[in-house]
């Protein structure tokens, strides 16, 4: 039909339009075919050329390695008494992703199971570092009643689970707290020093003591389970597993019976004692009092309890045996005496007149004996037995500070002993160069005088003192003190070699010199004039000992000590050193009783109790 209108429109031609359309349809089809070809090309690229890459990524998606925690190595004493074991306990875990509203759930959960602010904080810390679909522990060591209560309510808490786990337990409680130490939850500080991969399944880490020092040996190796997981990280099935490798068991040189007897001997007083076998350097007992229950720390101690322990007046967390700095006082006299004989400054039979006062030529200052009027004429034996200051003042001056320092260093004073426990302070061995470096002042002759009786700048730690004494007892055959006896990779496995200890140089001196010093020390215990004769009575073995009373104590033996601010309660420490049996010693012990006022009265009975426990009770047979 043709429109004859006034030219408003062009003529409509059906045939031409049909042809035009066919052309367009054909063109459209070709364009479409070309586009789909491009699309197919893209699939070829993905599915053929990049197939391997994407296959790998699909597997990566679905296969996750789930770490399996290794069980921590056990710690035994030398007779096989358990000091640290693993026990089964229950904890509450939460998977944020499955929970949804974590805050609301914690709120609800708090009504079923007690969750403290500390638990909450720990949880939040972990939540930051873990993936959303990982289990995050919330509360440890659930009570049986709590487990039961949760079981009733668990349908209300999807994504929250009660999970059994192995936790550390210290069956000996406080007795080994300072030496064995404890494990506790990993915190951000720990993360700095540990290898993350090895701890991927582990929640606890050794914080102090042996637990920290031998962390690498105790930890073990993490295992893995290859699991197929969905996008939420939920494990659907296990494809394979590499079991974890338990940590090594440690056998320590400590003797649990001796340790307990040592703790008992303190009877609640503050102080420290270290007992060493002079023949090999094995530490037999190491006590710092007061102590604390390490089990409190394992699953998180409350902030308040911790603050109380940390800042309590007697500072029970402070390991006095290794870190405590004390002025050795008269316990240094046997070493000074030994030095005098060795250097030939005096013979054992040389005598000195003790008038009660000592003066340096041309000086007005007076140094006194502890006994008014003096002790009269004394040789080395009597000087040690009665602890005659005048004898050692003169000896120190004759030897001179420059010879004194290297001689004392040979016994280990002024340096860490290398004990396998913690970073030890060096203590202070007074010397000209030390003073120059520390105070920028020159050395005064008067300072040499008091160095002879273990005062002035001297600072020793109980471990240092015990080590020096053990060296004296072993007649110069110095042995590095150590706690680790052997390791085991399983209960039935043979003992493994422990890391080799670097040897210490032997101190050479004629037998007569050693004997003279020993006899002097025996006289302390067994002669009618001995200062500690009251505590040598009745011993079926001979004891060589020496008391000491320190005027002052320094907290860490470091240089920040300020005499004027030292609190009264840190003064007048009682010290005692002893080894026995005197002729063939098997134990050397150093004891410090804080504010015990007199070494012979307060510390000597503790030392005696330790020696008795070791020599009388241990001999009949092995411990149970």
């Amino acid at each position, binding site marked *: 039909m043709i429109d004859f209108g006034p030219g408003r429109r062009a003529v409509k031609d059906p045939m031409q*339009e*049909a042809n*035009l*359309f066919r*052309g367009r349809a054909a063109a*459209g089809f070709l364009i479409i075919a070309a586009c789909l070809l491009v*699309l197919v090309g893209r699939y070829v690229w993905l599915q053929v050329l990049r197939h391997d890459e994407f296959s790998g990524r699909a597997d990566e998606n679905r296969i996750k390695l789930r770490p399996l925690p290794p069980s921590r190595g056990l710690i035994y004493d030398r007779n096989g008494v358990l000091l640290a074991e693993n026990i089964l306990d229950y904890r509450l875990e939460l998977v944020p992703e499955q929970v949804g509203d974590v805050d609301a759930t914690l709120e609800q959960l708090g009504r079923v199971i007690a969750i403290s602010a500390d638990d909450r904080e720990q949880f939040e810390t972990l939540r930051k570092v873990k993936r959303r679909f990982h289990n995050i522990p919330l509360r440890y060591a659930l009570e049986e009643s709590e487990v039961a209560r949760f079981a009733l309510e668990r349908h209300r808490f999807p994504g929250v689970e009660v999970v059994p786990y192995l936790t550390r337990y210290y069956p000996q409680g406080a007795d080994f707290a300072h030496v064995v130490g404890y494990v506790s939850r990993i915190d951000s500080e720990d993360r700095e020093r540990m290898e993350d991969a090895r701890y991927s399944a582990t929640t606890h880490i050794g914080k102090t003591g042996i637990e920290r020092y031998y962390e690498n040996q105790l930890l073990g190796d993490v295992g893995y389970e290859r699991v197929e997981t*969905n996008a939420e990280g939920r494990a659907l099935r296990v494809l394979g597993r590499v079991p974890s490798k338990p940590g090594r068991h440690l056998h320590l040189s400590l003797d649990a019976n001796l340790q307990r007897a040592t703790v008992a001997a303190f009877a609640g007083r503050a102080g420290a004692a270290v007992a060493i076998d002079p023949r090999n350097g094995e530490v037999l007992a190491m006590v710092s009092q007061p102590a604390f229950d390490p089990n409190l720390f394992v699953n998180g101690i409350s902030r308040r309890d911790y603050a109380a322990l940390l800042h309590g007046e007697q500072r029970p967390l402070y390991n006095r045996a290794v870190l405590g700095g004390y002025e050795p006082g008269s316990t240094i006299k046997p070493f000074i005496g030994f030095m005098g004989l060795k250097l030939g400054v005096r013979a054992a039979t040389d005598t000195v007149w003790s008038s009660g006062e000592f003066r340096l030529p041309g000086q007005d200052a007076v140094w006194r004996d502890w006994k008014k009027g003096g002790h009269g004429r004394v040789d080395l034996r009597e000087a040690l037995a009665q602890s005659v200051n005048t004898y050692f003042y003169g000896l120190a001056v004759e030897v001179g500070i420059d010879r004194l320092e290297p001689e004392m260093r040979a016994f280990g004073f002024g340096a860490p002993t290398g004990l396998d426990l913690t970073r030890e302070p060096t203590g202070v061995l007074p010397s000209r160069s030390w003073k120059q470096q520390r105070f920028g002042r020159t050395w005064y002759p008067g300072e040499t005088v008091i160095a002879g009786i273990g005062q002035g700048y001297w600072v020793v730690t109980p471990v240092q003192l015990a080590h020096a004494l053990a060296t004296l007892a072993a007649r110069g055959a110095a042995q590095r003190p150590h706690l680790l006896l052997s390791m085991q990779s399983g209960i039935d496995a043979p003992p493994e070699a422990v890391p080799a200890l670097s040897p210490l140089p032997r101190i050479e001196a004629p037998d007569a010199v050693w004997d003279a010093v020993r006899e002097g020390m025996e006289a302390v215990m067994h002669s009618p004039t001995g200062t500690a004769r009251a505590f040598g009575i009745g011993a079926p073995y001979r004891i060589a000992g020496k008391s000491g009373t320190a005027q002052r104590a320094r907290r860490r033996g470091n240089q920040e000590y300020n005499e004027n601010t030292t609190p009264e309660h840190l003064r007048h420490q009682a010290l005692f050193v002893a080894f026995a049996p005197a002729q063939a010693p098997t134990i050397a012990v150093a004891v410090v009783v804080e504010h015990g006022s007199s070494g012979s009265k307060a510390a000597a009975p503790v030392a005696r109790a330790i020696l008795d426990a070791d020599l009388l009770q241990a001999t009949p047979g092995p411990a149970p």
Partner: protein
Amino acid sequence: MIDFDLMARLERGLARWLKRPRVDLALLAALLAVAATGLVVLYSASAEAPAQVFNQGLRLALGFAVLFVFARIAPTVFRTWTPWFYAFTVLLLVAVLVFGEGRGAHRWLDLQVVRFQPSEFAKLALPMMVAWYLHDRPLQPSWRDLAACALILAVPAALIVKQPDLGTALLVAASGVFVIFLAGMSWRRILFLAACGVAAVPLWWQFVAHEYQRNRVRMFLNPEADPLGNGWNIIQSQIAVGSGGVSGKGWLGSTQARLDFLPEHTTDFIFAVFSEEFGLIGVVAIIAVYLFIIGRGLWIAAGARDTYSRLLAGSISMTFFVYVMVNGGMIAGLMPVVGVPMPLISYGGTSAVSLLAGFGILMSIHAHRLRGR
């Protein structure tokens, strides 16, 4: 009591239909093949949920029923009702903006009995209206006609953009544009308008685009920038496709979907599951079937008896192509992620029904291609 008379009438009707069903059997077979494939993939993608597969089966059945009904209606009837249908659709699109529901977007109308997306109606109403407008005007269209067509497209497209559903808006607009293209707009004008379109992209980016749309484009260009967030879908989809390889992991073998790495693996991303399980061979096969459907549709269009039928049939076929291209391209990381389903394979009711309704119109056009029959 049984109405034997009705039964007899139904029987006669069925017999007559079977003799001459007024459908293009080749096209129907291809559509059924794709739909069947869709159900098979859905069974796997839904982690073997028969209920979901049954549900989708029902929707497809409804869609094919609509197809058969539409196939019996003469194209002239469609043409007559086109302006009303178009007006009705625009009304619904306004209604959905006022009463609609959806997460953050207004796309659904809930009439208690049925819930549906009015934008699906627009996919048919727009090309119908443009074809209606052009059918009694001489071709090629004048600038004036083009302006009128642009207005016809712009109103519903704008309403859909407002929902906001840019993907559907573009798809809907494209179907109208295809009508104009098929109506013989000169290549020079096409190129000119295309150039204008390209030039408008920076303006769109700067002034119109929502931030989420910009993000989608950014993610498309560099999905690894945010692999666990916005880039996740794109990356996981490509991993699914790529890990399928040439022969695929086999039916029920998609780890990406079944372990939930692939999002929306029953709807927009179901083709990724298909690609993972049936590999390149499956992809090429299904795209070949799609191409056949498109080609057959254009063939029917070319044989149609009037301009309206031709334009509408052609537009329906070419729009179908856009679905395939956009969804397939999105899954392969060739295009940004837009909510366009893979026709007859993605889970979802309205889209399947409106698609099959469109093919019903195609069938009708095919059946009525000769005057007087």
